[in-house]
């Protein structure tokens, strides 16, 4: 088994057919002349002489890790792991191998339509007179919208990120997100989980259409949650017997909500400030939702609530004080000071309060993500905890902890190789493996 390359979806008992199938496939491949398909047979890699940080277990100073078929096959101290005969040996002396980082909330690969802000009086007039259309898309699958770009993928590799959640970002009921492995630019091959969660935001951008305010938004969301429950119940009752009942009218909006509100698939609430967190917690309590909070850069201010609620947290490493915050209302100097000194300590405080969280790059470029991660560590976040918050913690939130988050045999081979400690200022990510596909970022002269 170990020695033989195989297609993972082929059951073992059909081994006899294997050569035939391979031939057939090759024939098809040749016939279609699609060169990418050649990558279907992934090389076996043996990374040797490297330091291994498996996260789930103690580090190994001089180790070997074997990657086969996109999965981690084995790892351990150099003297305990045999390099397979068919492996391509990669000398990784001086490098450290970590599990690839997971950013459990991004808006990558979305075509962002810059919303034109009205400037002149005429613009405002125009904005006001345009017939406003509701912009709610709970049924939207962001997967269908994304256009991955190689450049973006590589930029995030350099920041150590190998897995991302891509979530939609418009409206209140924004739609459903997808979990992607950054293994290239083909959406279908990248998908780890589709859909993952329904994303809900409290901030409305619209004028003129209900709800146009935060207070309206909260009421609107509650009403829709009640409606979805009633809709599901109505259908159930009608199926059991239509007697005395009106036939429930098909409603795509509520239809999309039912799996999340009734069947308790995850709902992610975007929390842009401390009060959003409380608003979300109240909704979770009222509707007994399976929910995740994201954004949360003021989470430390609601530590008491979060301790009680034990809701998974996706904390963005975004240190800009939110608009509503006191830190944003006492002048420019106070705002800058808060951005530099107060908000970076968010994660450290959560750690101290024993609240578990995953860190995300929401709203950040890859460079500010890396910079802010260092700032958070400087502000007291232990590097070990930071690493967990970007690996095992998000894997658990995503329900992918059997596949991702640590270096363990059988898990997906998402690895990053760094020169230096992952969170060091001068550290560089020099190689990345995603699904066992190798990306080389060694700079010339190194």
């Amino acid at each position, binding site marked *: 088994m170990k020695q033989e390359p195989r297609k993972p979806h082929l059951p073992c008992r059909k081994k006899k057919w294997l050569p035939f199938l391979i031939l057939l496939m090759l024939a098809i491949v040749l016939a279609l002349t699609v060169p990418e398909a050649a990558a279907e047979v992934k090389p076996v890699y043996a990374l040797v002489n490297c330091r291994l940080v498996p996260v789930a277990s103690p580090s190994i100073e001089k180790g070997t890790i074997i990657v086969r078929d996109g999965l981690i096959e084995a790892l351990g101290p150099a003297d305990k792991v045999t390099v397979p005969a068919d492996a391509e040996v990669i000398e990784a002396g001086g490098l450290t191998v970590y599990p690839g980082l997971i950013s459990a909330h991004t808006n990558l690969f979305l075509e962002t339509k810059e919303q034109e802000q009205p400037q002149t009086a005429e613009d405002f007039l125009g904005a006001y007179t345009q017939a406003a259309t509701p912009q709610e898309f709970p049924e939207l699958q962001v997967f269908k919208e994304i256009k991955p770009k190689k450049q973006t993928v590589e930029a995030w590799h350099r920041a150590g990120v190998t897995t991302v959640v891509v979530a939609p970002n418009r409206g209140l009921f924004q739609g459903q997100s997808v979990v992607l492995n950054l293994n290239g630019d083909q959406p279908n091959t990248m998908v780890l989980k589709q859909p993952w969660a329904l994303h809900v935001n409290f901030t409305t951008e619209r004028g003129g259409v209900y709800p146009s305010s935060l207070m309206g938004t909260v009421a609107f969301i509650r009403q829709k949650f009640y409606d979805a429950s009633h809709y599901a119940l109505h259908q159930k009752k009608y199926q059991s017997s239509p007697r005395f009942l009106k036939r429930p009218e098909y409603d795509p909006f509520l239809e999309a909500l039912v799996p999340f509100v009734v069947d308790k698939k995850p709902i992610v609430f975007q929390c842009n400030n401390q009060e959003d967190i409380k608003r979300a917690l109240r909704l979770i309590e009222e509707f007994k939702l399976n929910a995740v909070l994201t954004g949360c850069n003021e989470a430390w201010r609601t530590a008491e609530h979060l301790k009680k609620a034990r809701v998974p947290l996706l904390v963005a490493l975004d240190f800009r004080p939110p608009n509503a915050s006191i830190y944003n209302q006492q*002048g420019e*100097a*106070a705002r800058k000071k808060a951005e530099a000194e107060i908000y970076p300590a968010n994660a450290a405080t959560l750690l101290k309060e024993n609240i578990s969280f995953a860190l995300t790059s929401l709203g950040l470029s890859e460079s500010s993500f890396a910079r802010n991660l260092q700032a958070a560590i400087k502000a007291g976040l232990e590097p070990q905890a930071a690493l967990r918050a970007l690996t095992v913690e998000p894997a658990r939130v995503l329900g992918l902890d059997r596949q991702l988050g640590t270096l363990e045999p059988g898990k997906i081979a998402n690895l990053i190789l760094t020169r230096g400690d992952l969170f060091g200022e001068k550290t560089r990510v020099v190689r990345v493996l995603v699904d066992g596909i190798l990306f080389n970022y060694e700079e010339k002269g190194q």
Partner: protein
Amino acid sequence: MFSRITCFKKYLPLSFLIILLLTTWLLSPAEARTDVKNSDTGSALLAIVNVRIVPVVGQDIPSGTILVENGKIRALGANLEIPAGARIIEARGLTAYPGMIDGYSSLGLVEISGVSATVDNRETGRINPQVKAIEALKYDSMHIPIARSNGIVAAVVAPSGGLIAGQSTLVKLDGWTNREMVIKESLALVVELPGIRGGRRGFMGMGTQQAAVSTDRALAELKELFHRARMYEIRREQAAKNLLLPRPDFDETSHCLLPVVKGELPVIFSVQADKDILQTIRFVQEEKIKAIFYGVHQGYKVAGEIKKAGIPCLIGSLYDQPPVWEDGYDSLFMNPVLLNQAGVKIAFSSSSSSAAKDLPYHAAKAAAFGLDRLEALKAVTIYPAEIFGVDKLMGSLEAGKLANIVLADGDLLELGTRIEKVFIEGREVDLSNRYTELLEKFRKREREK
């Protein structure tokens, strides 16, 4: 554009209806002319006796007499002989103060701020040196008798909006027509420089830095306009001397700016931020114009420079938020205190029409935060008179000055004080107003029972 016109046409009858209703209401017989009523001619000899006198300049007189003749104060003192034939006004228990002067208001230009048919203070466009407040002043405004019944006898009425808002006027609050009210027909040109805050968003507004940039631009634009006016004048003069020279076409803006650039007509600069104030001081000095500042929210930060430049300040309404949080919650209240202590000449203003009556309370507010009470009183009487160059006529109780006298049952600036009588140029004015009239009207219901 087309649709907007049709829309306007569509609602034209409605607008007419509103105007018609308003006119009937404003001219309804029940209230006609009670707003402006001269109860006597002011020529007879008048003696206000047994009155406590606060002349504002000079010592208070615990009990004395004020003699009024031909609209002027003939004499005042503790032991004056009362000439025979004088009409005697017994004022025991009352205090005589000089009538107050509102340093900046929209009295007579804004009646009901939300009803545009009654609003005349804001011309369209940005550069309007040609518009004059006096020419639109509604002399029978319902706000004037109310202000008067709080002891205010004169006010600056200023247009607003744009960069050059127009020409302000100084009027007394009495007269059968707008022209009868005139003290100074054109008091000063009003220039509005950008404020500190963008929009109405309290502390979250723009920083002073941003404001300074646009003030830069505004002052550059003014400089250009002033230069154009000077060149216009020179070329017109040259063309008058030499008939062969082409004469520049008539230029309204330049024409109206001539008194300013010649230093004849002062400019009231509405300016708030410290940096903007400094820039404006430089501008005033370079342009050699007469200037008065208005608003000056952050004036206290550059009080020394304002004092050095000798520019008086009309304090904007204290019914406002501090421009930026960093200034501290009380910065607007401390501002007049600190300016006064630095030796800057200040006068308070209502910056309003419907709240013009609150002028004394702005002064008292500053006193609550440390302004000497007499200085506070001066800043609504003699200081504005000095700033507007009418201190020979009014602003204090002194022999020879106009008899603008207020008889109050207590401290002039105090909230609960009632004004018993007001004399403007010796004439006792009617203190009934819209408040008292409506109250009386509906009290009848109670009495009918």
